[in-house]
């Protein structure tokens, strides 16, 4: 177990008299500062020792308040950080329900002191306040918040927990049940959305927003105004219990449509929010204790912590990347192709790397279409307020087009994004080698072809790398960085540097078909299609994978990728990896007919309903029609087999990279830990 980085609770008296406009007599606030002594970078977290310090600090102040020595109690953090919540690293090592219960109760015991304090209590939220940190603030009578903070919220559900230090009771009391549901359930499930200071005040979580320049001094001034009656704070009246419960039930239906029961945390939170309609604090706290104790030792929480660690730590330091000093500078980029992928890449390089980018395609019309895409996207970004005029002008001026391959000469990096056929890509590389210098990095955005084969006939195969960006490029945070047989360290390091400069997380992968994400996704889709060919009902296949809680079902995903592209990748992987990527005559005919898997308008999404009539395309093999459970087991076993093979083939050095890739590249949920923790716990791996 890692030693707790203790957040100390430092206590100092603050005389509020200088802020008082009227009145006499002592006006002293006992101020608790939470500070783990780690400067501005490492957030305050509350482990057992830190919580004990906080509790005894508050207890001491309450004693003094009782004696009349102080007239108010305040809690604040160090600069930029209030408290980021419980010490999750410590919590993740909990083994027994009894120990878990101890963590839950320790928080309640400390915060209860504030809730029952004999004098007004204030939280001065001058920085990050998440989870148990937010609950600490909610345990005070009043809250000020700094306008600059961007990380406020109760994200526990995203990590497989519930706000178990009073959040499910306190938040609805402060902001009402509807907004509490948003903060406790909806935001964590919405990619763990967090709140800014002004947004939290808008919701009513905070009472007043103050500017950063003199936040604490002005917080103390505001507290003085509250204490002297110059400022009054009002809270929403609670809605009747019946309406309260109905509101929670409506939210439950939405959660169910999304999770289908896949992970327990959101449901536990909903149950607690139902209970909190009774406004019985101790009953709510006891129920929080019990729920937290269950969840802290749940496999979903362990998997979530694994995922959290991967996305916050490993994603920033790719394992397998050569030292960054070996990277060559990339000051300009050429792109072979001006299609949709090429145009998205052009926008990304121009926007993030601030490098001049030239796209080359065969004729003017294609080039114009590519440039038109970039400028249309820039206009959209501008309209959304995400970039200003200057940046828009910069991006559009950086991106140019040409039909002459020779115009790609002199570029530090040339990436191809042409049609996904090995021969075409080889030809493009061969032509490029005629005009570019031997030092130029040649990259391919292929998703499934062999980079080694692509480089095979070149004079300088050592500068060829794979940079597999995902679609849509602007949104997807992952790049698979592919090392081919001849790739040298300089080229490989440069590829990682480019991914980083583009603001993406990178994982190092070997040059094996489909790399990680597509190999597993297509394997999953292949199993579902294979099962349909075996005679499994469409409705069964549609529902069978719901216990995984994936961001979308297999048919929605097939439609999003496009049946034709799916078929192409499936065929390619079959050619390279074998028959476990099955033929699907049904898919082939659907592609021929242009038939969709789901009913949708515009773009298919997780909620697009499957078209039951597609059943008519499948059933080519008189196999064994499967039940939900059988198909789920089949998919699990298939994924486990593929993971084993990938490890044998050394596609990655550690299954952690497979998990990270599935989280960032496919949006697979934290509660699966990516995928391997889930496969292990279900015995498939």
């Amino acid at each position, binding site marked *: 177990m890692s030693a707790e980085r203790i957040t100390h609770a*430092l*206590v*100092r008296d*603050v*005389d509020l*008299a*200088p*802020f008082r406009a009227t009145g006499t007599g002592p006006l002293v606030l006992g*101020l*608790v*500062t939470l*500070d783990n*002594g780690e400067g501005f970078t490492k957030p305050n977290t509350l482990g057992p020792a830190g919580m004990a310090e906080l509790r005894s600090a508050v207890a001491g102040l309450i004693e003094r308040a009782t004696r009349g020595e102080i007239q108010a109690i305040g809690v*604040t953090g*160090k*600069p930029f950080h209030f408290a980021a919540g419980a010490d999750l690293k410590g919590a993740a090592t909990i083994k027994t329900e009894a120990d878990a219960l101890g963590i839950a109760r320790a928080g309640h015991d400390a915060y209860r002191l504030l809730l029952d304090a004999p004098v007004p209590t204030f939280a001065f939220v001058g920085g990050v306040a998440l989870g148990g940190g937010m609950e600490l603030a909610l345990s005070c009578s009043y809250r000020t918040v700094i306008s600059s903070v961007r990380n406020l919220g109760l994200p526990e559900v995203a990590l497989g927990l519930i706000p178990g230090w009073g959040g499910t009771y306190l938040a609805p009391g402060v902001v009402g049940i509807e907004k509490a549901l948003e903060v406790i359930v909806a935001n964590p499930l919405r990619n763990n959305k967090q709140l800014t200071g002004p947004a939290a005040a808008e919701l009513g979580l905070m009472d007043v927003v103050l*500017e950063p*320049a*003199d*936040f*604490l*001094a002005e917080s*103390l*001034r505001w507290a003085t105004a509250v204490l002297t009656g110059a400022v009054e704070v009002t809270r929403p009246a609670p809605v009747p219990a019946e309406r309260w419960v109905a509101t929670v039930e409506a939210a439950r239906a939405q959660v169910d449509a999304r999770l289908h029961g896949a992970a327990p945390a959101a449901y536990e939170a909903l149950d607690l929010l139902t209970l909190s309609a009774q406004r019985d604090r101790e009953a709510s706290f006891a129920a929080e204790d019990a729920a937290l104790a269950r969840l802290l030792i749940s496999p979903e929480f362990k998997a979530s912590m694994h995922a959290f660690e991967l996305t916050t730590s490993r994603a920033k330091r790719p394992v397998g990347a050569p030292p960054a000093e070996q990277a060559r500078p990339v000051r300009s980029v050429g792109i072979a192709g001006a299609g949709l992928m090429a145009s998205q890449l052009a926008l990304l390089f121009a926007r993030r790397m601030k490098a001049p980018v030239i796209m080359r395609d065969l004729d003017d019309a294609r080039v114009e279409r590519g440039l038109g895409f970039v400028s249309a996207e820039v206009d959209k970004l501008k309209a959304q307020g995400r970039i200003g005029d200057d940046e828009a002008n910069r991006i559009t001026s950086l991106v140019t087009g040409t039909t002459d391959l020779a115009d790609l000469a002199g570029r530090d990096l040339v990436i191809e994004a042409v049609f996904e056929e090995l021969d075409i890509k080889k030809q493009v590389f061969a032509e490029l080698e005629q005009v570019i210098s031997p030092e130029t990095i040649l990259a391919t955005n292929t998703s499934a072809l062999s980079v080694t084969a692509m480089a095979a006939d070149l004079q300088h195969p050592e500068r060829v790398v794979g940079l597999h960006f995902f679609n849509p490029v602007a949104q997807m945070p992952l790049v698979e960085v592919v090392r081919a047989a001849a790739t040298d360290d300089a080229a490989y390091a440069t590829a990682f540097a480019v991914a980083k400069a583009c603001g993406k997380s990178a994982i190092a992968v070997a040059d094996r078909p489909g790399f990680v994400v597509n190999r597993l996704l297509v394997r999953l889709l292949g199993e579902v299609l294979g099962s349909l060919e075996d005679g499994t009902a469409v409705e069964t296949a549609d529902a069978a994978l719901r216990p995984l809680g994936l961001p979308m079902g297999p048919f929605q995903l097939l439609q999003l990728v496009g049946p034709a592209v799916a078929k192409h990748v499936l065929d390619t992987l079959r050619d390279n990896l074998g028959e476990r990527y099955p033929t699907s005559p049904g898919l082939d005919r659907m592609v021929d007919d242009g038939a969709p898997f789901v009913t949708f308008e515009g773009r298919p999404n997780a909620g697009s309903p499957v078209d039951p009539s597609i059943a008519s395309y499948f059933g080519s093999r008189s196999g064994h029609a499967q039940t939900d459970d059988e198909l789920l087991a089949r998919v699990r076993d298939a994924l486990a087999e593929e993971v084993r093979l990938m490890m044998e083939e050394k596609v990655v050095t550690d299954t952690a990279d497979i998990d990270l890739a599935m989280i960032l590249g496919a949006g697979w949920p934290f509660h699966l830990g990516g995928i391997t923790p889930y496969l292990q716990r279900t015995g498939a791996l």
Partner: protein
Amino acid sequence: MPLLGRDVVLVDAVRSPFGRAKADGLYAHTRADDIAVAVVRDLLRRNPDLPPEHIGDVGIAATSQVGDQGLTLGRTVGMLAGLPRQVPGFAIDRMCAGAMTATTLLACQIAVGALDAAIAGGVEHMGAHPLGQGMEPNPRFISERLVSPDALVMGATAENLHDRYPALTRDRADAFGAASQAKYAAALAAGKITPDLVPVAVADPERGWGLATADEPPRPGTTVEGMAGLATPFRDGGRVTAATSSPLTDGATAALLTSADLAAELGLTPKLRLVSYAYSGVEPEVMGVGPVPATRKALEIAGLDIADIGMFEINEAFAVQVLAFLDAFGIADDDPRVNPYGGAIAVGHPLAASGVRLMLQLARQLAERPDVRYGLTTMCVGLGQGGTVIWENPHYGKEAQQ
């Protein structure tokens, strides 16, 4: 001949509580620029009738313009304080007279019509930036005997003053030092100090956040008897002691200056009207006499005599240097017109910030004394300079203000 141009007024001025420049001092863990920001914000908060867009420039002084006192303080402090982006800013340095120089320079700009309003101030975190640290004096100063080696040691220049004017004895200096502490304590008790202080939140990794609301350097209860045994750190057998020197100090000040016209237009109440100012050089070895020629020059420009000045705020870098000034103008050591709230010996001297502290104290005194028409603020400056500003009391001839 009097100054030309438009009338310029000091509308308001505030300062941070001053802290001792030491490892466990008030501001040991607070950045200099953050102290200045707190002061500028409070100055604006106290003057809501002045739209911040009217501020034409921000001049902030510091003697050591490095680290958190570097990077063009007037601009960075303005931005950090949330001034509108169109408000420009600059940094300025005349060692101890930094804030005074910012004030007179910006006043000139207002007088000629280049600006209508400005913020002038100073900050010095002597705990983080001891005077002279990192400086590289040109070797010619010594080789050509341009200055004696001890001209750069301020305490040594104070000893030199005792040498030059034998009438300035240690006894007189000790008495003056004790009086400074006593006058400050009385002023504090009478509520004359705190109203000009900006409460500053101070981070402290060992004690937690606190709020600076009072000056830390003063040593109330200091007696002449208690001073007798003090060491003379600048010279064996010397006369200058810790009790007759200003302590090393952290702190910041800021003043709001406008044209008299703008003040009238916006309904701002001027606290001081600028009459004249002057700076003058003296021998660096006796820099403490700088206020004497500077004051003569300022009086001449104003067309006034020393007898016209009803209130003096003299920076007490050292007791002996104030005494030299008083002797030069025939003023008694305990003249009640001189530093009635005590001075830097008690409250501290955050070098470049002190000029505005003199002004805000003078303003408070003149508000209570409508019978006094003119006051002056003056200070000595390292490397042999003095600066003096003569102010007119806008309340002259009106009812006393409380």
